[in-house]
Every structure is written in structure tokens, then in C-alpha cells.
């Protein structure tokens, strides 16, 4: 791996908007509005930003993670393999569009691995539910896993995957469950309440990889302070114990209180704080190397464009002041795309993004019980003390 560089790569082509499942919650307008907002705020024109145009992932890259018969089924447009279902409808040029999303995340990983840029982001990526042999949860090809597999093949010894999507990152966890070189960490709404029904604290890694999976299952209704407390009670400790060379973040924005498909209650301000925390961990542990994708997020106008514009700002340099107004030009575009939605006027929800550190012995709070369950399940496997708040 090359020494880490300066600057950031933003992987983008309008062709990524063709991952379009039709009349479906995962509408590409959210990505279009994200890139428009970032552009109108000047983020894509910052110095040290490289725009990278991706190529589709080839058969070899896809088959590193997916079964050949599944790839064949995607090409053929189903049926079977989870395809042609309400969650994963067949759409025109499905294979080509899905391979391009994977290629974009691959390109991000390659930029960072080769040392061309310090960080790289593909907001169209993060399709973390796709399984080796089936589509699942709106996801056809598992682009994070494909990119992580590429980094392993390049010789990277340890990669940490942190997934802040409201849903469990089950596909990525499953694919690397027996691989001690990949630490998967997922914070999500409890599988008792939400798809995909996995991600319990006792899922801690398969044979030969004990402690390589970390799951924080949060109660419905968890807000900014509880979410950030859980993040800081688990993620820094397990990452420091694991000592990754590259940090990979899946940044689904569906933890937001306005998201129609889930029940957490975050603001964009806490989401922004989580991006800053992950950036700081990459700086502390990985010489800054940070590969970033989007993920879920179904408040198409109200949330996703702002959350990921904050993400693009954090990846490319200075974070945006939350008090920044959304530009009139973007407000007009958003209103034109979705006339019935309330277009946000600010980059903030006026969330405070403050939190208090987890302390042992406080088990009255459901978030604290979730934190403790995770720490008890996995901390000993990583040589950490579940009851010591310094760990």
C-alpha cells in the first residue's frame, strides 16, 4: 500500500442514476439532489478534489463476492435469486447499472489504496444487503464487499468496515464473517423491529475470526444523544484494538427521524457528527485512508441530499457550517423534482449533536442496555474490558 496522500476523490457519473428500481423507495433523485446540493455549495470545486469517472466492475471483480449463477441471473433479469420481488424488482439494464455502482466503489477504494488521494467517496454505493447468491433489501451487487475484497487481494492486511445505516449491514458481515482481516461494525435499529432481522450483539464472527463482527442493536426511537453515545462507547475501542490500515464507511442516512422506513430519530447534525468521528478515526488509525459510500436513506428531498452533502464536505475538507442555508438554485431544483415535499432551507435540523459518554452501571436506559450487550458479547474477544469505560 502506498503512503497516504492529500486530497479526496469524488467518484461520479450521471450514469449512476440508472440504478433506478422504478416506483420504489430507493429513488435515484436522492443522489441527483445530493450532487446538485454539493455542487451549488461549491464542495465539488474545492481545491484538492479529484472527480473520478468510474467503469463498471468486471465479471472477475463481481465473482470475487457473488456466485456465477447469481450474476447470470442478474444479467438475465431473474427470476429467482431474490430478483423480481417487491424489494428487488427487475429493471432495465439491471446488471449494467449494478456493476457500475460496484465499479464506482472499486474506483474509490483503488484511489485510496494507490495513494492518489487520501479519501474517496461514492455516494451511489453502499448496497450492503446483497448476498453472494441473491439480491436483498434493494441491493443487487454488494459494492462494499467487492471493494473490500479487492483491497484484500491487493494485500491490505486489516480493513475496518463501519456501517451507520439504520439497517444491519448483513451482506458485508456474512461475506467476511470467517475472515479475520475484515472487522465489520454495524450500528442499527434492533433486528427485532427492522429488516433484515440480523445484527444481534452475539453475532461476533465465525470460526477463526472471533471478534471480527460487532453489532449494536439500538431500540426504536433512539435519538442523537443516544446514538452518538452508543457509537462512542463501541466503535473507537474496537477499531483501536483491531488497528485497521484502511477505514471503510457505509453512511446510510436512514437513521434520520424523517426517514419513512425506520424508527430512529437522528438529525442531520448527529449524522454530520458521526462522519466527523469516522474521519477522525481514519486519521488516528489509518493515516487518513478512508473509503466512503452512501447507503439507505428514503427521505429523498428532506434528508439524504443534506446528510450526504455534509459527508462530501467532511471527505473533501472543512465540514460545512450547519447554519449554512441551502442555495436558492438547489431549492428550486428540489421543488421541481418533488413539488409536494417540503424542501429544507438549512443544512441543519438544529440538533445539538451533543452526547454524554457511556458509564457502566446505568442499565435503566434501553440504549445503555444495548451498548452493554454489545460490549459484553464482543469486547473480551478483542482483549477489551466490557465494564471499563476507558475501553
Amino acid at each position, binding site marked *: 500500500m502506498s503512503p497516504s496522500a492529500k486530497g479526496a476523490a469524488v467518484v461520479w457519473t450521471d450514469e449512476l442514476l440508472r440504478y433506478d428500481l422504478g416506483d420504489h423507495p430507493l429513488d435515484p433523485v436522492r443522489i441527483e439532489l445530493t450532487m446538485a446540493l454539493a*455542487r*451549488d*455549495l*461549491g*464542495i465539488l*470545486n*474545492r*481545491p484538492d478534489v479529484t472527480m473520478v469517472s468510474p467503469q463498471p466492475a468486471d465479471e472477475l471483480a463481481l465473482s470475487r463476492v457473488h456466485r456465477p449463477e447469481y450474476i447470470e441471473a442478474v444479467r438475465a433479469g431473474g427470476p429467482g435469486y431474490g430478483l423480481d420481488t417487491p424489494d428487488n424488482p427487475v429493471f432495465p439494464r439491471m446488471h449494467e447499472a449494478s456493476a457500475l455502482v460496484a465499479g464506482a466503489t472499486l474506483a474509490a477504494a483503488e484511489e485510496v489504496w494507490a495513494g492518489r488521494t487520501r479519501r474517496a467517496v461514492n455516494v451511489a454505493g453502499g448496497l450492503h444487503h446483497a448476498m453472494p447468491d441473491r439480491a436483498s433489501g434493494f441491493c443487487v451487487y454488494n459494492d462494499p464487499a467487492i471493494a473490500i475484497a479487492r483491497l484484500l487481494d491487493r494485500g491490505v492486511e486489516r480493513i475496518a468496515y463501519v456501517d451507520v445505516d439504520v439497517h444491519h449491514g448483513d451482506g458485508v458481515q456474512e461475506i467476511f464473517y470467517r475472515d479475520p482481516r475484515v472487522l465489520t461494525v454495524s450500528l442499527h435499529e434492533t433486528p427485532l423491529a427492522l429488516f433484515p432481522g440480523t445484527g444481534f450483539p452475539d453475532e461476533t464472527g465465525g470460526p477463526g475470526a472471533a471478534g471480527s463482527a460487532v453489532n449494536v442493536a439500538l431500540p426504536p426511537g433512539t435519538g442523537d444523544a443516544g446514538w452518538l453515545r452508543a457509537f462512542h462507547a463501541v466503535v473507537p475501542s474496537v477499531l483501536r484494538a483491531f488497528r485497521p490500515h484502511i477505514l471503510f464507511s457505509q453512511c446510510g442516512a436512514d437513521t434520520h427521524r424523517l426517514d419513512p422506513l425506520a424508527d430512529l430519530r437522528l438529525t442531520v447534525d448527529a449524522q454530520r457528527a458521526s462522519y466527523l468521528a469516522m474521519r477522525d478515526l481514519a486519521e488516528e488509525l489509518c493515516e487518513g485512508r478512508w473509503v466512503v459510500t452512501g447507503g439507505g436513506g428514503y427521505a429523498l428531498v428532506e434528508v439524504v441530499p443534506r446528510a450526504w452533502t455534509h459527508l462530501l464536505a467532511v471527505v473533501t475538507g472543512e465540514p460545512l457550517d450547519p447554519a*449554512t*442555508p*441551502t*442555495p*436558492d*438554485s438547489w*431549492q*428550486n*431544483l*428540489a*421543488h*421541481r423534482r418533488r*413539488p409536494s415535499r*417540503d*424542501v*429544507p*432551507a*438549512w443544512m441543519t435540523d438544529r440538533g445539538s449533536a451533543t452526547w454524554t459518554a457511556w458509564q457502566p452501571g446505568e442499565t435503566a436506559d434501553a440504549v445503555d442496555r444495548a451498548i452493554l450487550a454489545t460490549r459484553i458479547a464482543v469486547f473480551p474477544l478483542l482483549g477489551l474490558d466490557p465494564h471499563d469505560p476507558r475501553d
Partner: protein
Amino acid sequence: MTDSLISVPGLAQALASAQPPTVLDVRWRLTGPPTRAEYEAGHIPGAVFVDLDTDVCGKPGAGGRHPLPDPDALEEALRAAGVRQDRAVVAYDGGESQAAARLWWTLRWAGHPRVLVLDGGFAAWRAGKRPVEPGTVVPPRGDFTVRPGQLPVLDAADAARVAGTGVLFDVRIPTRYRGEAEPIDPVAGHIPGAVNLPAGELMGPDGHLLPAPQLRERFAAAGLVPDRPVGAYCGSGVTAANTILALTEAGVSEPALYVGSWSHWITDPTRPVARS
């Protein structure tokens, strides 16, 4: 095409003619790095950069965030940009046709006989795979003489009157019109009697202004009545310039811009504010 817009092929053709127009690059953003750097990185061949904030508008203050310019300062800026009396001017921005519309409006207000906005802006130019050039163009000095006041302008009292006797369009998004969210100005709401017609509704999915017949339908549906006064405002008179452009394209005579717009209306706390 029309009297106020020029297409990408139309501009390419005009640039190759014996009398090429003066092309002005007025890409602009509310926040973020200065757009002059983007102009220097690549612009339409021969285009001269003008700064919306400092060249086209007056200083922010009691007149609002983008008030009318001082005529002498405007004349100097336009002459430095090579604007000539006998030569057509084409204005373009990134593609949203807001800053370009305000420059179009300002030039016409200043009495220029032939001003056009590049439909789709620089984004359309690039999408059309047309050539761009880097660097800064220093044009021969122009000879344009500013004769201010050639287009109708509303002050606060006029705006209130138009809202009563004709139709006054508030072209901001509905949440700002209703006063639920106001990101920039200290007071939220709208001028009593104003009708909400968000500027985005005057454009098609591709970001181009709708054709004139559809524009007429939109304006009529929003309450435009023939032979009654019509005006438009937004936050600071930039986005609403695009609405004036659309009204002009639709064949409406004498649409008036409240240049100070909401940022000016609220400078006097005794003016009424409607929220709904």
C-alpha cells in the same frame, strides 16, 4: 428561438459569425469557493467573467442583499467587460439561469438593446461537447452607456400596490413563502397578497425554461390577469429575475422586478408580514 434566450447551437453559430456577440460568464454561488476560479479553469471561448455581487449589483445594505447598482460603477464594469452598444450580449451561468437572468435584466434596465441568456448555461454548453478555454480574457474596452431605468422596478410600496391591484409573484419555495423556514433573512413570511409561484415550476425536467405556451398556462393558473400590473420578488432579486425572463418569454408586457425583494421588505419592521 425567442427574444431573450439563445440555444447552445445558436450561440456557437453566432460566435462563428462576422459579428460575434459579447459573451459574459456570470457563474455565481451564495457560498463556497469563488466562481472566478471555475471561469479561469474553463469557460466559453472569448467569454469575460463578471462578478454578480460586485459588478452587477450594488453593495448589500438597506436596499437588500442585491440592490440596484450605481449606474456609473455599472457602466465602468460593463465597459471593462467589453460590452458595446452595437453588439449583442449573451449572459450565462452554471445552468440555473438565475445569475444570468439578473445580468440580462440589469443590462436591459441599463438600456442595452440586445441581451440574451444562454439556455441551460455552461452545463448545456459542456453537455453539447462544445469547446471551452482556460485563462482570463481581457477584451477591448467597450463603449456601452448606461441609461438606468429602462425596465420597471418596484419599491416596497409599489410591491404592496401590485399585490392588491394585479398579481405579485413570490417565487421562493413554499416553506419560505409560508414563513415556516427562512434561512437567510431574519424574518420569515411573505408580502400580504403575494401569490406563491416557485421559480422551479417554470422549468422542465431538463432545467430549461418551459416553452412559452406552457409558461402562459402556469402564469394564468397562478392568477395572472391580462392588462393588470404584474411583479415578482424572491429573497434578493436574483431568482425573481428568472421569473421576469419567463414572463417576458411568455409575452407578458412590463413585468416588474422588486429588486430589493424580501431582504428589503423586512428592513422596515412596520411593513406587514403574512404567514400561512
